[in-house]
């Protein structure tokens, strides 16, 4: 509850700051929406000029993209800015101030790093997904839909795990922005259905770097169903990544020297 209060207060402060530059605030909202519509626009262009992506109709693919935008939006709301908070504080030798507060350092940093732009992104994603679902005969009262929601949350958990790992890395190595850039690039694999990649990539993106849980698996499970053993096989790597990220964070906090860089 105390973290929720912190998060609410934090978002109020961030919004007050944004309102000081109203024109920029409005253009930020518009630009976020434009950026999120580029993917679906490309999809429409691809489907108008070719037969499309193997195994995916246009509306199925739009659902895929809407789902991905929702996952990225939720990630942006809760964790993306945390990395920059940690990165800047570590670089300036000010990170210790977060460790002196009577809060869990990770939850505290997440609470104060809430990013309102993620709400816009999530809304756009939800709109695109809803539009696509209206053409797809989705049964909302089904295990398929329940698994869809669970896998979306697991997608967010995986992104949270990676950002926590990179943040932990910055506490130890001080400057590791390159890792963030690498992760952004690897996210490109999540932007298209897993089935377009070779089998080696499919195994890697499911079990070793399970970014396919960002959109491919939630939508695949919703549209085509899933067996329970396979569902567990999809979930376990995400939980493992989350466990490792928490361990890395605790390790980094213990090793922190506040020397800056």
């Amino acid at each position, binding site marked *: 509850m105390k973290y929720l209060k912190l998060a609410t207060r934090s978002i109020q402060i961030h919004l007050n700051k944004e309102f000081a530059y109203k024109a920029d605030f409005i253009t930020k909202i518009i630009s976020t929406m434009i950026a999120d519509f580029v993917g679906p626009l490309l999809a429409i262009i691809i489907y108008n000029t*070719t037969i499309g992506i193997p195994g995916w109709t246009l509306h199925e693919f739009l659902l895929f993209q809407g789902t991905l935008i929702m996952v990225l939006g939720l990630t942006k709301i809760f964790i993306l800015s945390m990395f920059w908070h940690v990165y800047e504080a570590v670089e300036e030798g000010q990170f210790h101030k977060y460790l002196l507060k009577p809060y869990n350092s990770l939850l505290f940093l997440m609470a104060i790093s809430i990013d309102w732009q993620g709400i816009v992104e999530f809304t756009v994603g939800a709109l695109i997904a809803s539009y696509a679902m209206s053409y797809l005969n989705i049964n909302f009262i089904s295990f398929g839909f329940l698994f869809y929601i669970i896998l979306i949350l697991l997608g967010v958990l995986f992104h949270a795990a990676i950002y926590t790992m990179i943040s932990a890395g910055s506490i130890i190595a001080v400057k590791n922005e390159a890792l963030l850039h690498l992760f952004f690039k690897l996210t490109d694999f999540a932007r298209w259905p897993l089935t377009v990649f070779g089998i080696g990539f499919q195994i890697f993106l499911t079990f070793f770097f399970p970014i396919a849980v960002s959109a491919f698996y939630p939508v695949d499970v919703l549209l085509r169903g899933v067996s329970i053993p396979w569902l567990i096989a999809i979930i376990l790597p995400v939980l493992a990544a989350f466990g490792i990220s928490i361990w890395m964070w605790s390790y980094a906090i213990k090793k922190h020297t506040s020397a800056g860089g």
Partner: protein
Amino acid sequence: MSFCQHKGMALAGFKIAIRYRWENIAQVLTNPISLIVYYFLWKAIYAYTGQEIIRGFTFPDLVHYYVLAMIVGFFTWSEVDKWIEYDVIHGKMTNALIRPFGFLYWYLSFETGISIYNLIVQTIPVFIIGFIFFNLQVQGLTVFLGFFASTTLAFFIYFGLAFLLGLAAFWMKRITGLRRVRRIIIGFLGGSFIPLTFFPNWLQQISHFLPFEYVRSVPILVYLERISIFNALATQLIWMIIIYLLIHIISKKAIKRYASVGL
């Protein structure tokens, strides 16, 4: 502004770019990931569609297009609007304005230094990656020089567009949202994500009357020998003149608004 002054500012930009060398090297190493993703995506689409040529592009042509889009993107990249925004917000624009030459040339020389650095550290390595791993064709001297001239003009146009946008900071102070719009529009209408021939005809027609395709698509098409070098360079030159005239007019009004108060 003398050549020595240009050289001095370009050197400053070059040195600052060196400061971020690890980030740049990381970009060179990680950006081919996007190429791998596009490679698999289009391989699957071409196989599924069963056509050898889609909208004038074979599969290898399209892969070369993406390699060249990355090369042109590295060389023409400019964040001058970010510098202007920072200088206006922090009241540091005074430094640029009191110099004995126009602040446009000051920023231009600075960004030229960064672009020369990008040419060495990013563009050339990606060219080599393209030749070795993606069978990018080695072109004759005329085409290569045409490509280099077109990419250089593309850099000036991109810089000009970013500078024009940066001038909005004199009115709005913060232009983060506008900068994002600039990146998306140039990326999309410039043809970075997909060749413009894939666009519907009406959008292609509109695009010809906008400057964005001359920043990305045109240099690529020059390299792939799909358009006349002369026509490409002439149109780019015209766009460059139009944009710099606009800068000249708007910057006069912008400077009048500046009060050096900062945050």
